[in-house]
């Protein structure tokens, strides 16, 4: 009799497990909105790969991508809750945070800044000290923040007087640079530099990172609120995202194919060139993808503070969190 009861209860258990299975599978996915920094392009390839390979779905997340644009306040969208996560530059995180916005970086996708200053290779301009007395299109206030920021930080670091440089507004078409009126222009190695080189010009590249200015670029950001309310969702979203980026970096040609499904410019040549340029920025050959170093955050904060871009000072460690990266990578940077 006891054996029969046991068998019966075992059967009931099996039925219960089977009955639970489809319910779990049908569990409503968490809806997440990601605000991109700019229009769909290879710059965000890792996110597309994570989506197309089902990494988000595997974490039971349904992601909606929102494009950025000229008039879109990306940080505000994240702060207001229109987007759960955003791809922002660290300077925006700092500036907004100093204004009271509870933004927090959880992983830095571009661990090297794509900002580079270019001059013609016959100009004799090979280092920042050569900028003195020259025309540099580094951007007017309120323009491309990172160009201006890194330019002044670099000059200050080297003890060079920025006032002796003739600063003109940044022109994304580089007309002044082509006709010789502008001797130095900043650009992104993943965008403008490719376009300038397509003209067949030979250039001298001056990287701010060579002069002690280490800035992260595209950084995955969320709010303090989401971190405290749904830390598990943050971990799952970041885990899927990093997997997507890892795949994108490990096989960038495939990532370009995936990107072309989303990209506004459906030109494989353009997207491939962008992808090739960003590979060394995402995969630096040192740490895991997305990994962040406190000293870099400290350095960036210091630059912004010196340039009086922050309305108030605050604890720099509040602007980023290594908690999720450590959880995903088991605490290992490499």
């Amino acid at each position, binding site marked *: 009799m006891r054996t029969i009861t046991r068998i019966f209860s075992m059967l009931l258990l099996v039925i219960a497990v089977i009955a639970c299975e489809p319910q779990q599978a049908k569990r409503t996915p968490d809806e997440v909105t990601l605000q991109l920094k700019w229009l769909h392009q290879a710059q965000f390839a890792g996110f597309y790969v994570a989506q197309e390979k089902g990494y988000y779905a595997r974490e039971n997340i349904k992601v909606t991508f929102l494009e950025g644009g000229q008039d879109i306040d990306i940080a505000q969208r994240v702060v207001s809750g229109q987007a759960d996560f955003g791809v922002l530059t660290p300077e925006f995180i700092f500036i907004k945070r100093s204004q009271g916005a509870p933004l927090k970086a959880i992983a830095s996708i571009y661990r090297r800044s794509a900002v580079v200053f270019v001059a013609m290779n016959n100009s004799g301009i*090979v*280092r920042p000290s050569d900028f003195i007395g020259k025309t540099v299109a580094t951007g007017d206030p309120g323009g491309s923040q990172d160009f201006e920021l890194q330019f002044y930080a670099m000059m200050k670091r*080297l003890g060079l007087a920025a006032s002796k440089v003739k600063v003109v507004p940044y022109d994304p078409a580089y007309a002044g640079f082509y006709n010789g009126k502008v001797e130095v222009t900043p650009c992104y190695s993943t965008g403008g530099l490719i376009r300038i080189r397509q003209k067949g010009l030979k250039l001298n590249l001056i990287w701010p990172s060579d002069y*002690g200015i280490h800035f992260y670029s595209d950084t995955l950001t969320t709010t303090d609120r989401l971190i405290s309310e749904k830390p598990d969702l943050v971990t799952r979203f970041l885990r899927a995202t990093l997997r997507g980026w890892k795949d994108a970096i*490990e096989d960038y040609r495939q990532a370009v194919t995936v990107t072309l499904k989303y990209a506004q410019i459906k030109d494989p040549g353009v997207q491939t060139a962008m992808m090739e340029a960003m*590979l*060394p*920025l995402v*995969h630096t*050959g040192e740490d895991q993808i997305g990994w962040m170093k406190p000293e870099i955050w400290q350095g960036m904060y210091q630059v912004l503070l010196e340039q009086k871009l922050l309305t108030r000072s605050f604890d720099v460690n509040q602007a980023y969190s290594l908690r999720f990266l450590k959880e995903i990578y088991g605490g290992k940077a490499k």
Partner: protein
Amino acid sequence: MKLAPKLTILFLLLSIVPTAIVGYLAYENGRRTIVQETIDHLVSINIFKNNELKRWVKGDESSIQELAQQPLVRHYATVLTKHDTPDPEYRKAKGSIVEDHLKPRLKYGGFFELFLMCPRHGLISASTDEKQEGKYRDTYPYFIEGKSRTHIQGIYYSPVLEQLAMTISTPIKDKQGNLMGVLGGRLDLGELSKIIALQSGKSPTEDTYLVNTFNFFVTEPRFGQGFALKKAVRTEGVEAGLSGKDGVGFYKDYRGVPVIGAYKWLPEFKMCIITEIDQAEAFAPIVHLAWVIAAIASAISIAAGLFGLFFARTIIRPVRKLVAGADEIGGGNLEHRVGTASKDEIGGLSRTFDRMAAALSDKETQLREYTTQLETSNKELETQRFRNWDV
């Protein structure tokens, strides 16, 4: 079944079974030998190339260490560390170290740039490539590690140079042992490519490449372009090599083609070296061997079959003659003779048969004679009886 097919099958079996066994053993032995030879070859390539890489780096390492210990180099490094840029002493020291020490060393080959970094911020104070002067290297592993010991920063992509780079660095110390600078040397990677690309023979698929701890190709594989530090590889061989193992395996390579691969972890470079050959190529002699063995076995079997057939015929021909003779004799022709001359058992049987036929024939002749005599005697008796009646 008749004797002829029986004998033919018997001969075929007798030839096929041992030939198949011997053939299989020969094939197995041959296969093992060929596979072992291939594996030994791949492993030896890895060992050879690893030694070549070590020799290459060791030479440059010794060269830069020797340079860092030269009294004048130490003196100039001290001046560059203790004086400011505009100082005439600084300019003089910079000019001297570049022109008299660093540039002449480039002529020996091995390096394409030699440079001196200040100990505080890693500022490049002097370089054979003037464009590099004034840059800070404080976050670079070759500067951080190079402050205390000779260090090799493995192959990495330098966004500044926009190419792959490998840098050896070593500390420069004054007489009291204080750090006065870090001497760095960028290695000419042409030599590395030459070592890795070196082919051991005319094999069309032999492929050697290096893979770093991030699973990225470090050198270009034979069947890929633009893979170096741009594409990751996660084959069984690479994973085993990166986990610190030395060994061989049968697996699919980065193209998805089945290969025999030898992997070896190179701790000095924090990379693994992989040498692979397509299984199709490696197994080609084995397939050839199998065909040769199969051809020999078939030839032996056919020969055995034909021989069996011929042999069966030599046996069957006198038997058939004997049967025909027996039929003839059985049919009443006792004068018929099989007449086989052979000395074997069949010949003996035939002769016995002939003797039996001859004996039968004699008996019949005798019987006829007796019958004739009997008939004659009967007739004579009849004649005498009638005569007696007449009397």
